[in-house]
């Protein structure tokens, strides 16, 4: 059970977390927080065309390729999650 779900024991809050993906909470782990940050950033790069052009020029890729790689990276931006200790 992820810390996110454990925290949102009451259904109303659970509902809110399900609706607003990316919201943080007091018990968030470092990895979860980082993943949220990275996904938000990557989505923001894809959504702001000047940033995507900037990335494409710097990396010598077509914009379409840059967008594709950015979207692919959203799947797991910071590597696999750390092993959770069951307490």
């Amino acid at each position, binding site marked *: 059970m992820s810390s996110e779900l454990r925290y949102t024991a009451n259904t109303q809050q659970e509902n809110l977390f399900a609706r607003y993906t990316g919201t943080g909470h007091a018990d968030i782990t470092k990895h979860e927080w980082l993943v949220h940050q990275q996904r938000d950033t990557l*989505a923001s790069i894809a959504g*702001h*065309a*000047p940033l995507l052009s900037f990335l494409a*020029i710097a990396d*010598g*890729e*077509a914009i379409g390729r840059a967008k594709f790689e950015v979207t692919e990276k959203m799947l797991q931006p910071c590597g696999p999650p750390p092993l959770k200790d069951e307490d």
Partner: protein
Amino acid sequence: MHLYNLTLQEPTVAQQAIVGNFSGARQQEIIISHGSQLELLRPDPQTGKVTTVVQSNAFGTIRSLAAFRLTGGTKDYAIVGSDSGRIVILDYEPKAGVFVKLHQETYGKSGARRIVPGQYLATDPKGRAAMVGAMEKSKLVYILNRDAAANLTISSPLDAHKNSAIIHHMVGVDVGFENPMFAALEVDYAEADQDHTGEAFRNTEKLLTFYELDLGLNHVVRKWSEPTDPRANLLLQVPGGQLASSDRYDGPSGVLVCCENHIIYRHMDAPQHRIPIPRRNGPLEDPHRGVIITAAVMHKMKGAFFFLVQTEDGDLFKVTIDHEDETVVSVRIKYFDTVPVASSLCILKSGFLFVASEFGNHYLYQFQKLGDDDDEPEFISTNYPGNGMANPAGQLPQAFFRPRSLDNLALSDEIMSLDPIIDAKVMSKLPNSDTPQIFAACGRGGRSSLRTLQHGLEVEESVSSDLPGIPNAVWTIKKSESEEHDSYIILSFVNVTLVLSIGETIEEVQDTGFLSSAPTIAVQQVGTDALLQVHPGGIRHVLKDGKVTEWKSPAGMTIVSATTNKRQVVVALSSAELVYFELDLEGQLNEYQDRKAMGSTVLALSVAEVPEGRQRTPFLAVGCEDQTVRIISLDPDTTLETISLQALTSPPSSICIADMLDASINKTQSTMFVNIGLQNGVLLRTVLDPTNGQLTDTRTRFLGTRPIKLMRVMVQKNPAILALSSRSWLNYTHHNLMHFTPLIFDALDYAWGFSAALSPEGLIGITGSTLRIFQIPKLGQKLKSTSLPLSYTPRKMITHPTNEFFYIIEGDHRVVGDAEVQRRVQELRKLGKPVDEEVVNLPPDLFGRPRGPAGSWGSCIRVVDPVEGKTLSVLHLDKDECAFSIAVVPFSARNNELHLVVGTAVGATVNPKSCPAAFLNTYRFVNDGASVELMHKTELDDIPLALLAFQGRLVAGVGKALRIYDIGKKKLLRKCENKNFGSSIVTLETQGSRILVGDMQESMVFVAYKPPENRLLIFADDTQPRWISAAAMVDYNTVACGDRFGNVFVNRLDARVSEQVDEDPTGAGVLHEKPLFMGAPHKTKLLCHFHVGDIVTSLTKVAMVAGGREILLYTGLHGSIGILVPFVSKEDVDFLTTLEQHMRGETDLSLVGRDQLSWRGYYVPVKSVVDGDLCEMFATLPTQKQGAIASELDRTVGEVLKKLESMRATTSGF
């Protein structure tokens, strides 16, 4: 400090383009999204040229665009997805020439966020529904319909959300008239997020999901979801559905899934077909590199359809699907042509392909053929086992093609685009120019260029011929009213007049009835078929039959000035009297019984053209030597009575009354303008009130150093005014608004309209003893650009303190450099392998260079002469070495001899940021700077991204370290270092012993150099982290910067701190001060902040008009150019801030429904900057609203407009 932001050149990038019948006429049009602007283009199928119809500011980021048409409709609408959290449906209103928002439905927060829709748009091909999606999870479906009055209606949204799904692409599926269906490419991350072993991540599938909108139940269901290729990136709609009238199917329906190296045909429960994406068979191509499709278009013709798909290299492939009813038999792919990499492709029914390039100019191509009967190899799905799907996880055998020059397409038109501007310099280099030019290093890869941008209209000269003497004036006239083109050219010399007839050739004629032994003051075609010549001795009226009636000036007096129109003639005598003539109904010229004594020598006269259906124009403007202009009545009841008077600052040299349309003053009718040119080069433009003859709303403009001459001409069938001084200007109406633009042409002494069969819309002018005929091809253009091709993406450019040249460093990542290409080809030849010379020698500007893995670079240093517009020398760097920074340094250790220092890195990679080796290359200038010669290389530990000459030495930003280097025999010698910078130093500015360091992520840092201790001291920094992209020192304590997210801001250091640091000789005081908030001991204060929406790549402090105040000019990555003007008075600040506030109240101004204040304060609230673009929208508001806002400001509408114009004209000249 208060600034006024004004965009001089809107972004020219094309993020997306859509095609449709937006004006409802039979002709197809293209809408381009320029990021924050929307432009409607109309390609002309006859000429194959593209013209802009309208351009509108969105005050928001446009992220997606789609066209749709309701079933049975004839007009297309545009749906816009943006960062406003709203879906907007736009209709182009051709009568008013504006985009109208039909619907604006709010669904979420503003901003380009992860789960707020707006990134993707898909429409049902029958126009019944649209889906708008986010990067993750959210998808909303809107049902589109029409009501009883045939108005477009939009439903409330239906959601098709899927938690923890990243969306790659979505498209509408063509299902005919069955329930609308949408396809989406999704990846679910829920399991991968939980599995610490990484197993779930590796097994994550990419799902192709079909969502069906059940119109009966008003509900969206997830109809079908199947895994597809994990490297799929794009979906394409395949036609489908059955016509009600026939049993035939349009196509098999379903989608094409474009993946890395493959394209797969998919449909619910239908067999798959897979084909490879062919790759270039060049000898240097890496066969293991993946290729993806980045742009594609489907085109339906009668009974058939095909796809054009483009790879990231720019190669176009034609994909066709053979089908029997709804069953796919095979999918075929073959090479079509190679065009620049596009962000969008549009096929027009008239046989054109519009390529909206992702970087650089946009192109319109005409189809020559469809590649049906050529011998290009075709790859067919049925030739592979299991239609290519025998082993879906494995690769198909690689398919190859041979790239070649255009065969199926022919270039038809080109639209200039500056995107991307990577660096720019603003300075006056060109001779005979009194305003600075913008030199912009633009473009990407082989299509890069150095553009010289000059404010003004481009002029095309068609004829230039020498005359025997120096004429004073030139006119053209028609023989009679009914003639289509001009018949004669009349040239007036000091004491003779020359008449030339225009026919097959232009030759002198004698029999026109004009007096040739005297100079001419004016000529006019009067009545239906008579001609008129005014010369100092009188007026000759030449009738159709050649009979001449002559009016002689009274004895002892000559005519000094005259003005004419079709029915009226006014001449001024040397006795300062006015004589008025009018044509009666029989075509006789009658003199008015009285003469009007003016009391002062008349210098200039003007009457307007006779308004249509009238006998005469009722006003005459007279400019006298006593520095006045009088408006005199020509009305029969009050003939020659003075109505009004305007005092001037200098004697007038020319006056011109013209009726022109200016929608900011009057939306429906043309306004009568009195233009007064003064001898000191100032032009006054006033509005003549037609009811009482008063002159109101005076605007002034400085045109040049010579007395002004004004002429009325016709440009594109609309009246315009040519104003000649030391520069020539054209005042014309474009898109209903008045423009005043210089012509980029030699100074003219006189000019007139010229119409002949070959040049129906030309102008004729004289410079010295040369007669010149020219045209103005592109009205509305603000910047004329000349371009010099470069080899690679320009990185930085620099000027030399003593010569005129530019030194440009260029570099491209992931390409094989030219020298390395040659070396490898040689190697292959040595090994005896066949080398396809044609493929190796394909021009890199069209085909790009051979691609290499990350860490391979091609780079060079180029010396350019901007005046001649040519490259003087190119120095290629070693293999995989790329130049990142450049400086010209006068080393005091070498008697201030100038050296060029270039910071390079070898094998650098962008992500992760690393480099195996980095250098500072020191070059000596040879041939007066026309080329450079390597002296030595200094090894470094990180990439030097910024270099600057500093007190006879070099200061370099090397990664996180700031260092001072002095020159040595074998290398540069490190003298001093400070390593306490945040991430990486990207900009350096200096004044005195102060260095301003721009950090990649940590904003501006103020550094003082203390020579006694040889110490670089950080003494002040910013309170916020900023990703600096460009910086310019405004004064000793103030810096203006641009950041990565499209903001510009100004920071200032407290003057007391500044003094304190400067007075401390050793810097010991600063060194031991307590750090403030874990940074430097002092903080700069934020003075101004503004979001421009484009990444600022250069900032320059410059005066754009001669004698004008200094402003900040910035260039943006997407090709925008703008200025920040400091306000000089509190009154102006109050006035324009209040105007801006009122303009914000006009909520309909943003096309995408974004709130202007929140857009301009995207990351940080706007501070002390007035949005001039918004204020200038005042001119386009309806008259009542203008009046209401103006009265709130206690001004008249004219005064508001005048203020806005003067803000623009006096600071930028635009």
